[in-house]
Structure formats: structure tokens, C-alpha cells
């Protein structure tokens, strides 16, 4: 990686292009890191505001109906609700930073514990569906680009439109109807408790497919258009004129469209985590989406806040990592 040599280079070399690229990359990395902080803080303000968006007194939800005025006042003080909002926010943020997301109203368990277990399950599902969508989407997109205008291309375009148009919660229900109810091949609900790896995978199969549909459509589309952009450039014509074999032209096209494809993959993985809410609700998969669904039903605001804050943080950090990795792959990006 030539960019990494920059800081060690002598002052005389730093004036040369390579040294300046490295400096630009590092200052970009620094700027990007600094930008993530206000975004995260802003997200935390939104999550904090959720309690106050909720209709009714937040205290009323926790207190039994027959409690006296004095008891309500005491609870208010205990929760810090008697203080001004900015103070409440800072106190809350201080706790959140230390990993204390409060307690569930329904179960009295610490929210962070529930979120941790759920996040693990969601990550597993997000990984499996991403693998499926990335593999199939890249293959289909490239095939379509190289067969532009032919039947295969039209099929890929069609599949891409279906992928971005289909309500994935409905797709999940259709999968259950076909593979669980009619054919009785795969389980419809939940994650396997015991029964070995095979049983676990059998439970994962349907939610994985349902969750992979949207990214499959998006990735096929982006890969196809990215590859077409490169294919239409003059250097590809030059390569062909030079007599390069089709397989080697393919390598050139893939390498040049990689940065664009890479961005989409990163974003889509993030969407998988947040977007799995509805699919998890359909399949009762014990992830963050299912937890969120439960919290909505029980109007359990601390759990709602906790899940959303953790997912948003994850999403922001993921975007950051994707951005940074991208500048490593393609240092030209820092100039934009």
C-alpha cells in the first residue's frame, strides 16, 4: 500500500505527489472520524427525545394506577424527571456511554443484556443474507453487463426491479406458505434451541432468503451499471483492440468497478441490520427486530430506545469503516 509510506518519508519527498496523497488520506481519515461524533450525538438526541415524543407522562407508564401523588413525585425524582431536559439528556448520555441503557419496563431486566443477545442473532442473520445477496447479486450484475441487451440481461433487470419492489415481510409469508405449510420442508418460526448445526441452518434458511431479496435487487442493479460504465470507456476498447482475451478484459472491468460496488455492499450490510425488523417479526427470529416488535407491543420505551441507539451506532460506525476502507482501496476519493 503506497499511501502508508507517506509519514515516514523524508521532508524532501513529501513535496512529491505520493507524499501529498498520503497526507491527504490521513487528514481525510481524521476529518471523517471527527464528523462521525456529531452524527452519533445527534442520533442520541433523537433517541433521547423518543421518551418525550411518546404521548402521556412517561412516569404514568411505570407506575401502578393506584399510586399516590407523593409516590409519583418520588419516582419522578428517582428517575431524574424533575430536572430540566438538557440536564436529563446529559445524565442519560453519561449512563449510555458507560453501557447502561436502563431497565426494561416489562421484564425489569437490564436493556443492554437483551440487546446484546438480540444483536448477536441479528448479526448472524444479516451476515448469512448478505453473503447470499452479495454473491448472487455480483454474479448476476456482471453477467448482465457482459450480455447487455440479451435475455439474461433482461432477466437480471427484471429480478432487480422485483427485488427492490417486493415488500420483504410479504415475501417471508409467501416462503412460509410454500416451504413450511404446503411442502413442510422447513420450519416457519424461531431459532433452533438445540438440535445441532443442521437444525440451526434449517431455521435460518427462510429468513435469510426473505432478507436477501432487497439487497439482491439493489446490488444486481448497481453492479450492472458500474460494470457497464467501465465497459463503455475507451480503455476497454483499447484492451480489446490490443487483442486481450475476454477473460482478462473481465478482470480489468471488475477491478475498475470495485470501489463503487464496495460502497454499495457496505451500505447494504448496514441496512440488513436495521431492515431485518419486519422479517424477524414474520419469522419470530429472536433478534433486534423481534425485540423491537415486543417493545412496541408493550410500549416498553427503554427497550425501544436501547435497540435503536445500538443499531444506529452500529450503522454509523459501519459507514465510517466502509468510507475509510474505500480511501485505502482508492485514494482518489479524498479529493472529492
Amino acid at each position: 500500500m503506497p499511501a502508508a509510506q507517506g509519514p515516514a518519508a523524508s521532508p524532501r519527498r513529501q513535496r512529491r505527489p505520493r507524499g501529498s496523497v498520503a497526507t491527504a488520506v490521513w487528514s481525510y481519515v481524521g476529518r471523517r472520524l471527527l464528523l462521525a461524533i456529531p452524527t452519533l450525538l445527534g442520533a442520541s438526541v433523537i433517541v433521547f427525545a423518543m421518551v418525550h415524543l411518546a404521548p402521556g407522562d412517561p412516569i404514568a407508564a411505570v407506575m401502578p394506577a393506584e399510586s399516590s401523588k407523593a409516590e409519583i413525585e418520588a419516582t419522578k425524582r428517582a428517575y431524574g424527571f424533575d430536572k430540566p431536559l438538557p440536564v436529563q439528556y446529559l445524565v442519560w448520555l453519561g449512563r449510555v456511554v458507560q453501557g447502561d441503557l436502563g431497565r426494561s419496563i416489562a421484564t425489569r431486566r437490564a436493556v443492554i443484556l437483551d440487546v446484546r443477545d438480540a444483536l448477536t442473532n441479528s448479526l448472524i442473520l444479516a451476515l448469512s443474507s448478505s453473503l447470499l445477496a452479495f454473491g448472487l447479486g455480483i454474479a448476476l450484475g456482471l453477467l448482465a453487463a457482459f450480455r447487455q441487451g440479451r435475455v439474461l440481461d433482461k432477466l437480471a433487470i427484471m429480478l432487480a426491479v422485483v427485488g427492490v419492489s417486493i415488500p420483504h415481510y410479504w415475501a417471508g409469508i409467501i416462503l412460509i406458505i410454500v416451504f413450511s405449510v404446503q411442502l413442510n420442508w422447513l420450519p416457519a418460526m424461531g431459532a433452533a434451541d438445540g438440535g445441532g448445526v443442521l437444525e440451526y441452518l434449517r431455521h435460518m434458511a427462510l429468513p435469510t432468503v426473505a432478507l436477501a431479496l432487497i439487497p439482491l435487487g439493489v446490488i444486481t442493479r448497481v453492479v450492472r451499471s458500474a460494470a457497464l460504465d467501465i465497459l463503455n470507456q475507451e480503455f476497454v476498447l483499447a484492451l480489446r483492440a490490443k487483442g486481450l482475451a475476454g477473460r482478462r478484459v473481465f478482470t480489468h472491468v471488475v477491478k475498475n468497478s470495485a470501489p463503487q460496488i464496495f460502497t454499495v455492499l457496505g451500505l447494504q450490510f448496514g441496512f440488513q441490520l436495521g431492515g431485518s425488523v419486519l422479517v424477524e417479526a414474520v419469522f419470530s427470529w429472536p433478534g433486534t427486530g423481534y425485540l423491537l416488535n415486543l417493545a412496541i407491543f408493550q410500549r416498553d420505551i427503554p427497550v425501544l430506545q436501547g435497540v435503536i441507539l445500538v443499531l444506529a451506532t452500529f450503522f454509523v460506525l459501519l459507514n465510517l469503516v466502509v468510507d475509510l476502507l474505500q480511501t485505502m482501496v482508492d485514494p482518489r476519493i479524498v479529493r472529492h
Partner: protein
Amino acid sequence: MAIRAVGPGESPDVVMAESLPPAVALVPMSYWRTVAWRLTRDRATLVAGGVLLLIVLSAVLAPWLAPYDPSAGSIRLRLASVGAAGHPLGTDEQGRDMLSRLLWGGRMTLIAGLTPVLVAFVVGAALGVLAGYVGGLTNTLVMRTMDIFYAFPAVLLAIAISGALGPGLPNTLISLSIVFIPRVVRVAESATVQVKGLEYIAAARASGSGVIPIVRHHLLANVLGPILVFASTQVSLSIILAAGLSFLGLGVTPPAAEWGLMLSALRQSIYVNAIVPALPGLAIFVTSMAFNLLSDGLRDAMEIRA
């Protein structure tokens, strides 16, 4: 086509002009006429537009088209299959006519899906043009605030706001508008910054034009097109999210008919009847696909690349 030799005292341009077909040389089509002409040549877009027109018409005319009261059920007639006597699309888990409920449900789903994009288009375009044209601190303030909403994937943001506000159509509209406004603002801002730097804006300013005429006549005319195309791409997502919110119990409340709500209620019945529970989702799918194809066609016709 033959090009004759340039005669004495003649300019070569005249000869060239003679040799071109007159329609091309003399009457250039206006931009919007070109777009309309291109749309009529695009078969997929036409079909999508036709399907959409049917869906919208059937939703608007639901009170006259629906054969039954959408909320009147019958315990004896629960989950009748498609093609049952008197109920061409069967009945739901409470014995209510599916055709009537799908027609009425389309109204709700379309209102819940289209309104937020419309609100986002108006508010987002205003904020984006303001941020882009004024620049400086205003720009930073508006754009950084919008960035915060990008910390959440769309589904999660919608659920977060709706989850806090509670169920109901008005709350769905609020939460979905908040999801789509930042997206429109981003597009509007970058389009405005791009157009603002063009020379004809500087020329208008140099000839003494004020801010409001410049924005109204010169800027908006060139910025609204791309914003409109972008907004049209968001409609299908908005419909899927609106139905998804009621699927989770956060949107339209029962006993109203709404496609997402119907899908959620019929979910328990898939072991009794496999076809009827799939119908509301199919309606969402067809509508969202038609909107996607239409916005694709519109984008191609306007030659704007996403």
C-alpha cells in the same frame, strides 16, 4: 443525401443547412415534449402507468366499486377461498369480503404512502434550495442536521418515531415524512449548488435581477426536475414502509382496511387458506413495482442518472 458543391459567393453553412432534413434543423422539440414523446415510446413504462392508473382509480372509486361493506363480516363465511359464490376474492378471518377490503385498503395504503413523499418533496425542496442558494452557515446548519437522520436506516427511523408516537395514520404520515425529508434535502441542495455556479445565473445577477426572481425563474426551473425524479423513486419505498408500519401494528388501526394491516391479520390463517392471506401483500407488491417502473421510465426519459 447529396451535398452539392459550394457555389461562388455562397457560405458553406447554407449548403449544409439545405442538406439537412428541415424538421430537425428548424423546429427543435421543447424539453417536456421530448420527455413526453420518449415516455410514449417506452412500453414497460406505459404498462406500469396503465396498471397504476387502474389501482388509483379503483382506490378512488372504492365506495362505488366495492360490492360489500368492508367492515361487515359473517362468522359463517370465514376464510372462503378465491372464487367462492358472491365473493370473487374470498373472505378474510372475520368473514369480510376480500375484494371490498382490498379496494378500500388501497385508499389507505396510497394515502399513507404518497402523502409523506409529497410533503418531503415540498419541504425538502424548500430547505434544500435554501441551504444550497444561501450557503455558508445556513447550509452547514441545515445539512448537518439532515446528516443526523442518516444515522438510521429508513425502516429503523420510521419504526423509532412511530414507536414513540404510537399507532394511527397521522403518526405514520409524520414519521414517514421525517424519513424522506432529509433525502430530498440532500438531492435539492446538491442540484442547487450545481446550478447556482452556472454562468447564466451570474448573468441574471449582473443584469440586476433580485434573489427572488432568480430563484423563481432561473433556479427552480432547472432544479425541480431532478428533485421530482428523485422523489418519484421514493414512492415505492414509502408504500412498502407505510404498509410495513401497519403490519407491525404501528400504522392504521383496525377495523379500517389497509393492505399491511390485512396482511398482518391474515397471517395466522395461512394454515387454513394459503391464497387469501397472500392477496394484500400481492397488492402492495404490484403497486410498488408499478411505481418503480414508472419512475425508472421517467428518469430515462429525462436522462437523469441516479
